[in-house]
């Protein structure tokens, strides 16, 4: 291949004949796209529609336009510019952690009244139990901070920062099983295939650092439980470059970044430029957006060769930072280490860091399981809040903590003095947010004495999504993408911004 050939054509006769062909599928695609473009031209202001087809834009014009968002975003002044979502996969038990229910102690072992259940269909795991014995929490609760927030003894570190947190105690979801519930939380729909929150934000707001992905997922290695899958950070029908990039939990977050032996990498840029040329020709011929996505990803991978080692290197962190995050933080891939990495990624301009920690699914041995989980996560979470705050980053960073649903007040399996299990519970659970634009030291929503039904200010997953987008300056009803003949939103046809949560 030589540089002076503007258009790359094959010298081989057979290949030339192939080049001349356009197969049926692409013919239909191209012609229908062409018609679509014409129709679009008539719909839009004609002047604007034709100008883009005329002379190619000069680089200056592109430069000048680059700071204008093509989607007309943000709709209003944002409060948040980045976000860490600490997803506690499995469904943490709200009444053992935050939702203090002292009256339950007197009801130990009593059958949960039918009136409380209200005809709700239980899961197959506990629905067939002959009794549903009430299991009060084994853990002591105390009030902390100026906000006098109740927190259980399981979270000694988090209790130090309650005045920065905004609790949502009336969370509700539609799903009672893990996969649909997590999918619902991350994409707004229980079936896989819709774009995740991070993809919507990436699509809507673009990147703040060209050298790193906009949306990065970290799964901690010291949590085991229900499996997670890539569709949770998938782009759905949005362009592929908006999908979340998963960093591996371990010493090498991204594999194959180092050059192979005996290769110095000097001509890689040149190689990629040529590849880009080929891909551009292919894209001009077929107009397939996946080709563009591929070009963007090659470019990103190249940039990540330098940017990733830089950002994942924690050697310049002082000891007191490691101490704050706990001893786990020196072990790459743990929850605490991921919290620290998340902060570093945000500092570099990554917009959305999604952390997953599995293992909150305490069907049996709930007290022991929770102790174990909290020991692994409590210090890292609290340290992250403190660390962001002292650096001033909490001002424009949104931190979210929560699982896909809560757990039942009754014991799944046998209830003893020292042990109980808890089943999935979608009708009431607790989450918290902190940082940009949310009220610090605040609690929203209340549950009944059983932490079973929401009695005041319920907050549905769709409302949570609407509020999240609102904090980023997005009207959730106006960020849409047309796919298969209709426009989709993260909140689809639901959702209300909960203004009471906002500063």
């Amino acid at each position, binding site marked *: 291949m030589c540089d002076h050939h503007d258009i790359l054509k094959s010298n081989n006769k057979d290949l030339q004949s192939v080049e001349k062909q356009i197969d049926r599928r692409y013919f239909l695609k191209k012609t229908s796209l062409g018609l679509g473009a014409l129709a679009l031209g008539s719909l839009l202001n004609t002047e604007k529609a034709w100008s883009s087809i005329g002379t190619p834009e000069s680089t200056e014009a592109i430069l000048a336009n680059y700071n204008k968002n093509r989607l007309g975003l943000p709709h209003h*002044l944002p409060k948040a510019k980045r976000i860490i979502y600490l997803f506690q996969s499995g469904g943490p038990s709200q009444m053992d952690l935050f939702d203090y229910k002292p009256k339950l102690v007197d009801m130990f072992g009593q059958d949960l009244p039918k009136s409380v259940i209200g005809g709700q269909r239980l899961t197959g795991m506990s629905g067939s139990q002959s009794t549903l014995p009430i299991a009060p929490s084994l853990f002591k609760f105390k009030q902390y901070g100026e906000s006098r927030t109740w927190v259980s003894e399981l979270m000694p570190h988090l209790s130090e920062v309650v005045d920065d947190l905004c609790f949502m105690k009336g969370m509700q979801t539609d799903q009672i099983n893990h996969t649909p519930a997590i999918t619902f939380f991350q994409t707004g729909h229980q079936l896989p295939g819709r774009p995740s929150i991070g993809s919507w934000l990436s699509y809507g707001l673009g990147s703040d650092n060209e050298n790193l992905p906009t949306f990065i997922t970290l799964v901690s290695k010291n949590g085991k439980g229900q499996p997670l899958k890539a569709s949770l950070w998938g782009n759905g029908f949005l362009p592929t470059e908006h999908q979340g990039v998963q960093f591996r939990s371990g010493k090498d977050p991204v594999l194959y970044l180092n050059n192979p032996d005996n290769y110095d990498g000097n001509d890689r840029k040149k190689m990629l430029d040529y590849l880009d040329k080929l891909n551009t020709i292919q894209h001009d011929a077929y107009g397939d957006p996946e080709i563009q996505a591929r070009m963007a990803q090659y470019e990103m991978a190249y940039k990540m060769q330098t940017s990733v080692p830089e950002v994942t290197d924690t050697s310049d962190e002082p000891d007191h930072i490691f101490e704050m995050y706990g001893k786990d933080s020196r072990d790459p891939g743990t929850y605490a280490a991921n919290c620290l990495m998340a902060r570093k990624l945000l500092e570099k301009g990554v917009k959305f860091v999604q952390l997953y920690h599995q293992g909150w699914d305490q069907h049996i041995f709930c007290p022991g399981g929770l102790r174990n989980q909290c020991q692994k996560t409590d210090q890292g979470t609290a340290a992250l809040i403190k660390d962001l705050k002292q650096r*001033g980053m909490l001002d*424009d960073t949104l931190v979210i903590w929560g699982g896909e649903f809560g757990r039942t007040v009754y014991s799944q399996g046998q209830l003893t003095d020292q042990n109980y299990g808890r089943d999935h519970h979608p009708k009431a659970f607790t989450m918290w947010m902190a940082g940009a634009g949310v009220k610090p030291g605040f609690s929203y929503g209340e549950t009944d004495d059983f932490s079973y039904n929401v009695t005041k200010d319920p907050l549905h997953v769709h409302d949570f999504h609407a509020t999240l987008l609102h904090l980023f300056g997005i009207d959730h009803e106006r960020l849409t993408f047309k796919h298969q003949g209709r426009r989709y939103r993260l909140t689809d046809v639901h959702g209300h911004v909960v203004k009471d949560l906002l500063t």
Partner: protein
Amino acid sequence: MNETTDFILFLGRFHPLVVHLPIGFLFFAFLLELYGKWKNTPALTAAIPLALLSGVISAAVACILGYMLSLGGDYSESTLDIHFWFGIATTIITFLAWLIRVEKINISKPNSIKSNISLLTLIVVLLSITGHYGGNLTHGSDYLTKYAPFGKVKKQALAPLAKVEDANIYSYLVNPILENKCTSCHNTDKKKGGLMLHDSISILKGGKNGEVLIAGNASKSELIRRVLLEPHHDDFMPPEGKTPLTEEEITILSYWIDNANADFNSNVGTVKTPETVLEIASNMLGLGEKEKGEIDLPTMGAIDDVVLNDILSEGFNLRELVYESNLYEVLLPPNTIIESNTNQLDVKLQKLSKIKDHILWLYIEDNLLNDSHMKVINQFQNLQKIVISKNHITDAGISEIKNLSNLSSINLYKTAISKKSLDYFSKMKNLKKVYAWQTNISEKDLETSKSERFFEVIVKP
């Protein structure tokens, strides 16, 4: 015309259906004529008399049905007259054309070819005119050209409002709803049920069944009763196939009738207006209610492209904070300025100051910024947030920017400021947060005059 029997109207409603038969037949006759001549295919020309005869018969039926429909009296008379007479003319001319074609009327041979083609052309023209007026009767006279890309007549726009309270209820809220959902059938050309809803006089006049409004009593008013009926009810408005009114729209109409006594001059501010109505009205007028605690955003014109490019080429990242507000977040990536190019920072800031009022958030972290640069930053009067952590800034630098009165958050983590800066901060009226971890301000410094301080200083987590 009230004595028109239902049966006549029943037949009349077949007019829009039957009317398309002659249109098809006659256009096809015209095509046969053209194509037959062009390709010289007598077999095709032979079919023309049949097409014409079918056209005559169906046109005649359509005329009769059309007359029956017109007896209902739902249409404006001037347009109806034109449509009526053109329809009849088309039928008669078609009849003539058929007569000539089958040689019931003899015209000498050489002329007959010309007369055939010219008569058919005339028929097509007549058909088009009749059809057009018919369309105007059914869909309204602006239906055809409403979305045309050319010659769009700008509708007289209502003056934009500063607040909801100033809105005239009828012209800003009620009329747009009626225009959107009702007037396509209730206008001067097409007055279904004798009702027109396009202006105040006709609204007050009502329709065939009497008045549509009872001031102060929305639930008894026909206008509201009809839209609240069960959707399959015969009287439900808008009729099947049209978009029904939304709850918000009904709320507004009821509010106008109940609270404003259906007065055409009342403003939102002058009548009792419930919270929900205010909210709907603000949404309709695009006056989103202002969120509490939100500082008014300054209104700024667009920045010249040359200036913008200049700033971008200096390495600043710009992001518009609200679309088309021309207000920006500006960020200089950390370590853009290092020991070897310190002198460039002055130039960069000078260039940035060309858009000084456009900057709301400014990030110049870890870029060897020092006290001498703060004078430039003090010009950025609209700044709400500034992040200048990890720089060589001392109290002297802070004293330079104490006049930034819109600043609500300042990040000075890892700078050299001390206790003295607290006094300067208290000059910044809107300040809420000062991030001062790893500076010379200690927790002890914050103990004094703590109660008077209106902003929070974060020195440790």
